[in-house]
């Protein structure tokens, strides 16, 4: 099944999610699971606790990718995370109400060790309740 490099999806928004307030418990659990050692992510009191920079990847929206992506691109369902680029803004703190908006940023094809692959770059912008930028995440998905 030859992929169709249809770039019409580029720029389309496929998810907008408002998350419940960030809890101290989740920040500490994420940091511990990520093997963090810095006390500001683990043992600081709630008012001073700060999430590690990569905490934002745990904010999983209702839709991880456009629902019609595989159909439009004529590719299989098997996908792998090929890379990430995170631009960090203000830190995430306990009680923050975060919003994530995701769009298709780029689509291209290349060949590598595992054969021919289509890459889709999904951009997620995360803001807090004050409208400040918390993170911009470019997630590169490899699909076959």
């Amino acid at each position, binding site marked *: 099944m030859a992929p169709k490099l249809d770039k019409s999806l580029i720029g389309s928004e496929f998810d907008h999610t408002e998350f419940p307030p960030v809890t101290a418990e989740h920040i500490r659990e994420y940091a511990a699971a990520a093997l963090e050692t810095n006390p500001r992510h683990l043992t600081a009191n709630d008012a001073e606790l700060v999430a590690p920079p990569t905490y934002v990847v745990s904010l999983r929206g209702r839709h991880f990718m456009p629902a019609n992506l595989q159909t439009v691109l004529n590719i299989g369902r098997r996908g792998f995370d090929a*890379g990430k680029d995170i631009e960090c803004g203000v830190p995430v703190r306990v009680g923050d109400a975060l919003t994530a908006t995701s769009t298709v940023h780029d689509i*291209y*094809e*290349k*060949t*590598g*060790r*595992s*054969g*021919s692959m289509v890459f889709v770059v999904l951009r997620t912008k995360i803001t807090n309740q004050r409208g400040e930028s918390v993170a911009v995440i470019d997630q590169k998905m490899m699909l076959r």
Partner: protein
Amino acid sequence: MILDLHTHSEASEDSRAPVETYLKWLQRKRAEVPIDGLVLTEHRQWDPHADYRALEDKYEFLILRGAEVETDYGHVLVYGVNKDITRHFDFTNVRLSAQELIPAVTDMGGIALPCHPGRPTVGLCAHYDGKPPIEGVIAVEALNGGSRRGENERVQELIDRYGYKTFGGSDSHLVSFIGICATEFDRDIRSIDDLVTELREGVYRPVDFRANLAKRAAS
């Protein structure tokens, strides 16, 4: 004269290396990575307007340009890219015909050389198992700085069987990997035309500087 023949700057989508930062790094690492120039071989593209002469003058370092394209026999480095070549071959096409590309690029004044031939799927070795050899291959990248254990070693049989010349390149996508593998030429190279001539007719060999960096890190 030592040149890194296979490098990627931030113009390649999977590289994070600004060209000027490469040059600053090479100035600092002269003892460990004694290269005289580099060739930017960006993935699947050719920008006819890119111009690095100001950086060449500032850092007294040779910067040439080529491209890394994708074919039905794996990836190929193209040097001496010109309008004839880009009119004939779409560099964004990941299914170029290597049998057509390699001889045609030679006829049009450039040279196209298979890179990382030992790499699965995108290296020549994997394709020579079941397909006829490509006509007109002069040299292959026997030493690639991004290859995994065993991939560079796999190339020896190819070289012995077909008599290909060999060259080296870092395949760097990060600043600190520039020049770790390179090519030593017997003659001076000052331009892309010189490079094409030397790759076709000259004497050269891959050189490996990875041990210099490991030694430094251990000390």
